[in-house]
């Protein structure tokens, strides 16, 4: 690649990064400001009022260690939603990977009739508008008793998550040589140890990426949670939307920060697995 092109590429990356980061900075200032309106370039007054109203920081005068504990122990809506989002996210991530593992192995290693068709049907939830299938699902979920509870929400989150997880893991298995397992078996490793010592290290990078996708898709799910949870299962996206429609920018900014912070944290720790050189994503072309 010639040098100028390289430079342009680097600038493009910088530009992209700025476009992504600038709103975050604005968010951050907003969350700690008091009445920051249009012509002002910087807010006149900094304040923690948004955080107080979210019941994450105690009122002035009660900001001691005990004060924090007491406030958080009162189970404010934000913390409840945060815990819900986190636990649903982790649960569906683990379940989706357990389900996807055998499917991805077959799709990645074997060739059979209708394989393309099966892959197409499998990824169809990503093309279909969620409202289209969730309304139909809702009727069934109500009759099965899954509607309006935690379990139902977890179940419906699996619908948009599975395609990402299965596809990512299929990519890994397309690059995977099962003879390594056979080799370990002839050397005296039983099935469990073969999986732990041979298979798992080989597919771990792909599993991390798949888990990342799964968690983030679940984390940002609004419509499905809203409809199947019937307002009884409160997650962070639901709280963000209802707060945003209340029209207090500082409050919205504060809760948005809580919303995006875990996502950024997870991306930060897993980014090395997502890069182009990683084994996790290099198998995609082979599916």
């Amino acid at each position: 690649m010639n040098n100028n092109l390289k430079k342009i590429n680097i600038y493009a990356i910088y530009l992209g990064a700025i476009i992504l980061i600038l709103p975050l900075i604005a968010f951050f200032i907003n969350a700690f400001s008091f009445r920051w309106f249009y012509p002002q370039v910087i807010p006149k007054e900094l304040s923690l009022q948004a955080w107080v109203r979210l019941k994450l920081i105690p009122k002035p005068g009660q900001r001691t260690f005990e004060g924090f504990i007491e406030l958080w122990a009162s189970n404010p809506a934000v913390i409840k939603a945060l815990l819900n989002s986190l636990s649903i996210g982790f649960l569906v991530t683990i379940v989706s990977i357990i389900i996807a593992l055998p499917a991805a192995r077959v799709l990645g290693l074997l060739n059979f009739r209708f394989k393309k068709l099966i892959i197409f049907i499998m990824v169809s939830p990503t093309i279909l508008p969620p409202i289209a299938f969730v309304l139909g699902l809702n009727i069934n979920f109500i009759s099965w008793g899954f509607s309006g509870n935690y379990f139902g929400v977890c179940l419906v989150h699996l619908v948009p998550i599975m395609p990402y997880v299965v596809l990512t893991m299929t990519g890994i298995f397309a690059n995977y040589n099962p003879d390594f397992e056979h080799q370990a078996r002839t050397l005296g490793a039983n099935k469990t140890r073969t999986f732990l010592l041979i298979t798992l290290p080989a597919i771990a990078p792909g599993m991390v990426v798949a888990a990342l996708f799964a968690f983030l898709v679940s984390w940002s799910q609004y419509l499905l949670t809203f409809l199947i949870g019937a307002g009884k299962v409160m997650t962070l996206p639901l709280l963000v939307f209802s707060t945003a429609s209340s029209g207090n920018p500082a409050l919205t900014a504060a809760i948005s920060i809580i919303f995006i912070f875990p996502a950024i944290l997870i991306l930060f720790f897993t980014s090395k697995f997502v890069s182009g050189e990683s084994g996790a994503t290099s198998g995609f072309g082979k599916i």
Partner: protein
Amino acid sequence: MSKLNIKNLIKSFPSMDRPAVNNVNLDIESGELVAFLGPSGCGKTTILKMITGLFQPDSGDIILDEQSLLKIPTEKRGVVMVFQNYLLFPYMNVNENVGFALKMKGVDKNIIDQKVKEMLELVKLPDIGLRKPKQLSGGQQQRVALARALISNPRILLLDEPLSNLDAHLRDEMRDLIVTIQQKLKVTTIFVTHDQEEAVLLADKIALIFDGELQNFTSPKNYYEKPKNIKAAKFFGGVNFINAKKHNDNLSTNIGTIHYKGENYTDLNEDNIITIRPENIKLSKNNDFNNNSFKGLIKSVIFSGTHTRYKIIVNDLELECSLQSVGLQDIKTDDTIYVHLPSDKIWAMNE
């Protein structure tokens, strides 16, 4: 030190219209070095995988030291296979790779370290224990794979195309190493190859397999001198085949009666086929042979260094003869020649 009996082994795959392995019977003695020889896709690797337990046979039995292996899981069979592409575990260094089998047995770590060192010395690769497989050359990887396979004293060692991924000069070296180690450890060894020369150089006995069927199982020498059928003879470079009929303790052909001394005369069918290796045919311009001598015409002469090859037409029959170039009579194309087929060198077979 283990002997292996394969009985009526059959294995089919849905994607193939003939059985991949069709009724194979083999008795391999303790400490033997046996080659499974045949073109690719003939089922030889399938047999190996059934011995390791990675495939289950449709029917038949595999018996190791009087005990059927079929119900025993792969990891408890004591059968170790070295795959064609070595398959060193990429996340482990050489020491960890070589010590893998002992670690699986739960051997004490100090003893493992000691044994790993011994094995690496045996394959002449000391001092590379801390490297990762990626940092090794193909030949080194092959040796490490061999060390890894041998560390737990396997009852049977299986090698899948052990030399096919190596350069020519490494191949000779590796072949010597395999023979040396095999003789030292006396481990019953089976290796798979499609290279007839490799099988002859390495093996005590060769099992020749075509299309899933065992053709013959005997010493390399017998394949040259006493092949069982045309296919086997052709695979080992046989080119001369003469249709014959039994007649008065001899064989009659359309070039004349051929005297035959082979010990299998009584086993021969009425119609049979005579073969003789090109290097065993003798030529002379004057008819100075007692019997089995036929008049023919030289069709072509091809000089190929140490040997010269002649094609001779005798009564519509084309024979090929290969003579040492040194001290050769002056024979040219279109010369009339007497062809002598020494009666102790010809061999007759049924198919």
